[in-house]
């Protein structure tokens, strides 16, 4: 490195000397009739060139050499360093001053340009380094967040699996104790009613476990993009009726109002899946609104291409900042007011509903109910293309299975 800098410096001096000599030779060959001004300009140009290319010291050498050559070859008396006329002294001095000054100035300009270039490169390097560091940091942060999320999800899942299991285990061991006690001739500790109650708990909690596991599987399918939609032309009122029939046991203590726009076209959807969405929304409405209140189900057109369905309740409503989060899996909003019970459900219903709606290229969101009270969950679905082949829209994604 150091060596090449030195070489360059010497190359500058050599170039300065050679260029001045060569230029003088050319000017001499071209003829003596050239006037002093032309010659001095040509030599000055050479000095400038040396200055910009090799810097101030070679330029100084070039200036002095040029001055000597100018004097020796082009100022009378020729071929001597003597100068006859006074004004030629002045030209020579002016030439020297101009050459040195121009040389120094252009060399300085060159140095500045180089420094600026270096500075720019340094800034670029620092910027790149900073960006890399930032990317590494944000990657690590994202990883940490995702690990945190994973462990939070695992906690939620294990809690939801263990809770019904705990009730089942406690019930079954209570019953088992009773049976074992009877075998050993101990007096019965449980009356018939208590036994039935224990068995009811086992039955209900097994169903709860099963629902939870089915939900997990469905959610996993949606997340893997493997949700298989079986799209057919179906009627909206049938979809809603199916959901209502299924929800009958959980809505006995609510009033149900259904309002379907007249002349609503058929939709090309997976009827079972969409009915599941409606059921989930009715189920939530029933859970989160007081007994005896009204649950409203509406369906109407939303423009040329879409229909819109909504389920509305008179419950506490959902705070605006939670309206996105309730669609996150395992998120459960605690209800205001009633603290005697934990939030019901598995925290998967709305996540699954969202998955189904989006697989249909629809949209789902939450707004306040009529008059700003309660919760209204709205979703849209495309009506579907009359000319589409059934097979073409068979599924969201085709995963080869072995």
């Amino acid at each position, binding site marked *: 490195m150091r060596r090449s800098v030195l070489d360059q410096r010497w190359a500058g001096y050599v170039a300065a000397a050679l260029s001045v000599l060569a230029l003088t030779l050319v000017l001499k060959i071209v003829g003596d009739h050239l006037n002093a001004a032309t010659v001095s300009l040509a030599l000055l140009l050479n000095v400038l060139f040396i200055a910009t290319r090799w810097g101030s010291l070679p330029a100084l050498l070039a200036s002095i050499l040029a001055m000597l050559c100018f004097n020796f070859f082009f100022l009378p008396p020729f071929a001597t360093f003597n100068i006859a006329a006074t004004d030629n002294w002045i030209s020579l001095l002016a030439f020297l001053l101009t050459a040195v000054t121009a040389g120094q100035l252009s060399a300085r300009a060159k140095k500045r340009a180089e420094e600026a270039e270096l500075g720019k490169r340094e800034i670029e390097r620092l910027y790149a380094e900073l960006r890399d560091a930032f990317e590494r940091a944000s990657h690590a942060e994202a990883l940490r967040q995702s690990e945190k999320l994973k462990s939070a999800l695992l906690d939620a899942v294990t809690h939801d699996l263990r809770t019904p299991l*705990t009730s089942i285990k*406690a*019930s079954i061991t*209570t019953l088992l*104790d009773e049976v074992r006690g009877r075998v050993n001739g101990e007096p019965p500790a449980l009356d018939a009613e*208590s036994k039935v109650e224990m068995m009811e708990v086992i039955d209900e*909690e097994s169903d709860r476990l099963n629902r939870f596991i089915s939900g997990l599987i469905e959610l996993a399918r949606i997340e893997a993009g493997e949700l298989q939609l079986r799209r057919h032309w179906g009627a909206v009122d049938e979809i809603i009726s199916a959901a209502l029939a299924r929800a009958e046991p959980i809505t006995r203590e609510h009033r149900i109002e259904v309002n379907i726009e007249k002349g609503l076209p058929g939709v090309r959807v997976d009827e079972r899946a969409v009915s599941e969405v409606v059921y989930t929304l009715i189920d939530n409405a029933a859970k989160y609104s007081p007994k005896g209140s009204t649950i409203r189900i509406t369906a109407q057109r939303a423009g040329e291409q879409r229909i819109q369905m909504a389920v509305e309740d008179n419950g506490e409503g959902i705070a605006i900042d939670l309206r996105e989060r309730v669609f996150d899996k395992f998120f459960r909003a*605690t209800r205001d007011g009633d*603290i*005697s019970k934990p939030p019901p459900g598995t925290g998967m219903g709305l996540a699954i509903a969202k998955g189904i709606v989006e697989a249909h290229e629809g949209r789902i969101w939450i707004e306040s109910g009529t008059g700003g009270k309660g919760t209204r969950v709205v979703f849209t679905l495309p009506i579907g293309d009359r000319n589409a082949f059934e097979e073409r829209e068979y599924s969201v994604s085709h995963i080869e299975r072995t």
Partner: protein
Amino acid sequence: MTGPQKILVVDDEPQLTRVLRTGLKSRGYDVRAAADGLAGFEAFNDWHPDLVITDLAMPNVDGLELCRRLRAVSQVPIIVLSAKGEEKTKIEALDLGADDFVTKPFGIDELLARVRASLRRANAPGTSETTKTVLESGDFHVDLESREITVRGNQIHLTPKEFDLLVYFIKHAGKVLTHRTLLAALWGGNYVEQNEYLRVFVGNLRKKIEAEPTTPRYILTEPWIGYRFDPGEA
């Protein structure tokens, strides 16, 4: 003792309180249930139960806070229901004064055994009396004045710290004692992180009191949590 013993069950899971209520009632206990710590504390103040069984994770006032509030006003035995993965909270509850824990899911027998042990301990006369100079507990006989101890009729010789540790164990027989609790009680607050101290002393104590120090029957290890002392049947 008059009437059945009263147990308060505090859990936010209605199905579990339903089962525990029935299971415990069938064993002759009087049972009430509350769905969170706040309701639990209110029920405690109204009803004065003989024992409290509480879940740890509950909305609003959780099990830890309930332990804290109960210990501020009462020495009622507390059994916490915890799940795997809640170890930290469980230890915290024990440090706050809970007596025992049962890990979910559990069989009703296990819970009943813990309930019986806790109630027995709470009703045992005189464990907290300071004027008493002789401690009789299971296989152990301790003279606090002469600092003499016999186990199964054999006199043993302990260092002063070993003696203090054993007396602490005997006074809290049956109760789960966390490393932290023991260290704070015997060495003071500055040593609560020095589990190895405790391990050495418990090891030495076991060599002197246990028939088989490798399979102890008096000082039982509660993995990751601490120890439980069983004085044996006299």
